[in-house]
């Protein structure tokens, strides 16, 4: 089996130098190409760079968005030295940033823009209508049973996780409520009205046990990041946020693929590699932005990334430790549940904002190290995560 030596090759050699967002809406009224360009332009402005400084592009998508090369052409990049157009969902989001960092660290490119642009509400709903049947053989064993959408897929994993941990609906309600409280402090967030436990518990079932407020939003938006060398970033406009460690892992498909226990995700395998790459342990993490397509994925990852002992996440939330002011604030922007769904990349953007110290009312005081993660490998069978660190 392959060894994971060399994982530290990236450590602190590259930085996120710019971040850009479009508005978050339910109907952008423009193409994903336009969204991508707006976010990239905003990220370049944030960094104090011009489009002529960009020589690499990277994005992930599931056939639902403008291609990386198209965006590069429209940006007017003459000598495109690196391009990555990764097929995949939330499990690949953080790998895109890691690949951009690798391209910069290896000297292939100087400055890479990464983005995710989606009209995920108005145009292309995940698992919804208006798309051709997927072609993977395992879909022959799914679609005939009326099984196609992310809530259906994750509901079964949620059930297994609750069953194994003895977790209750209230335990997961606290995740949704805590994140909504964070979103109330975030001008960008789509859902800012406080959520009560009664509202959570009385919200309609989508795919039992998933209720409406267990499910993330569907959003039209784009988020972009500028990745460049650490030295170069120090000469730019913002406090550099260093890419300290990156790791990618496998995961569970529906049919297991050799992983017997669905309640332990690929993150449990990936986390040791990630921490070793960054040269830290989980106790060093000041703030965590964890992929949250559905509520249960957050406590599950707190377990699998070694941040909270297995089986103790219910108490962790009940005691307020995941909230601002708590021991480890989680999803300080509101996450996919309340800020919006930009397929993992808005979690990276929030981690960068926290580490710059510019998160305003929702700032985690003195945050120096952030863990941010993609979907922990379910369904698509791949996962990825980053450790970011404030420079200096």
């Amino acid at each position: 089996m392959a060894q994971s030596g060399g994982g530290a090759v990236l450590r602190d050699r590259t930085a996120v130098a710019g971040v850009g967002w479009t508005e978050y809406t339910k109907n952008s009224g423009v193409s994903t190409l336009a969204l991508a360009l707006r976010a990239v332009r905003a990220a370049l402005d944030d960094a104090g760079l011009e489009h002529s400084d960009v020589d690499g592009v990277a994005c992930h998508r599931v056939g639902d968005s403008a291609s990386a090369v198209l965006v590069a052409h429209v940006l007017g990049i003459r000598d495109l030295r690196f391009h990555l157009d990764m097929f995949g969902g939330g499990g690949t989001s953080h790998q895109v940033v890691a690949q951009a960092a690798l391209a910069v660290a290896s000297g292939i490119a100087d400055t890479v823009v990464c983005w995710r642009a989606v009209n995920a509400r108005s145009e292309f709903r995940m698992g919804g209508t208006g798309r051709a049947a997927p072609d993977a053989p395992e879909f022959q064993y799914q679609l005939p049973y009326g099984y196609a959408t992310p809530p259906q897929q994750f509901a079964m994993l949620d059930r297994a996780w609750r069953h194994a941990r003895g977790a209750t609906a209230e335990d997961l309600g606290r995740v949704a409520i805590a994140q909504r409280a964070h979103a109330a402090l975030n001008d960008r967030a789509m859902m800012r009205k406080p959520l009560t436990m009664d509202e959570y518990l009385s919200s309609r079932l989508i795919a039992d046990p998933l209720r409406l407020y267990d499910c993330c939003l569907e959003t039209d938006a784009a988020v972009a990041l500028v990745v460049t060398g650490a030295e170069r970033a120090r000469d730019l406009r913002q406090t550099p946020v260093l890419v300290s460690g990156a790791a990618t892992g496998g995961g569970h498909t529906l049919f297991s693929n050799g992983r017997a226990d669905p309640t332990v995700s690929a993150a449990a395998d990936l986390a040791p590699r990630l921490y070793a790459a960054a040269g830290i342990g989980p106790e060093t993490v000041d703030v965590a932005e964890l992929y949250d397509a559905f509520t249960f994925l957050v406590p599950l990852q707190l377990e699998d990334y070694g941040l909270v002992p297995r089986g103790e996440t219910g108490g962790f939330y009940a005691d307020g430790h995941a909230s601002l002011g708590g021991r480890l604030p989680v999803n300080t922007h509101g996450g996919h549940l309340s800020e919006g769904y930009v397929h993992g990349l808005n979690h990276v953007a929030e981690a960068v904002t926290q580490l710059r110290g510019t998160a305003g009312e929702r700032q985690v005081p003195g945050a120096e190290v952030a863990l941010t993660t993609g979907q922990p490998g379910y369904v698509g069978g791949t996962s990825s995560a980053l450790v970011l660190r404030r420079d200096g």
Partner: protein
Amino acid sequence: MGTEASTAEHTGGNAESPPEYRVPPPDEVTAGWWDATRERRLVVQRCLDCAHLQHYPRALCTACGKTSLEFTDVSGRGRIDTYSVTHRAPRPDLTPPYVVARVRLAEGPVLLTNIVDCPLDRLACDLPVVLAWRPLPDGRALPVFRPDPDA
């Protein structure tokens, strides 16, 4: 937590429910599996080199990597590994609520399926289930499961 009282009387339909589900065409690896359903035989792949059993059918054994595989009959008994009750269907031709489950066969592999003839409030992880067949118009059939009457 669990199912709501208002849906407890639903049983997720029965094995003879109209085949309202779309079935993608078989491919070169899965064709034998689908053909077996014409004879109402539930099969999984067995590796001729290491005896590993696997589902869904693939071009090679996920345990040893070899490519000599055959289809072998299984007992049709298993337990619900995990399940969900769909209340918002992905397509308008599907009528919720219905039950999607991952069943762990007695022989080991897991199968995605529907649970039929089962009150929703009886559903549980680890519930013993047995095979039933839902006919398809072209002579094939879909394996579905119901609670094991002998358990």
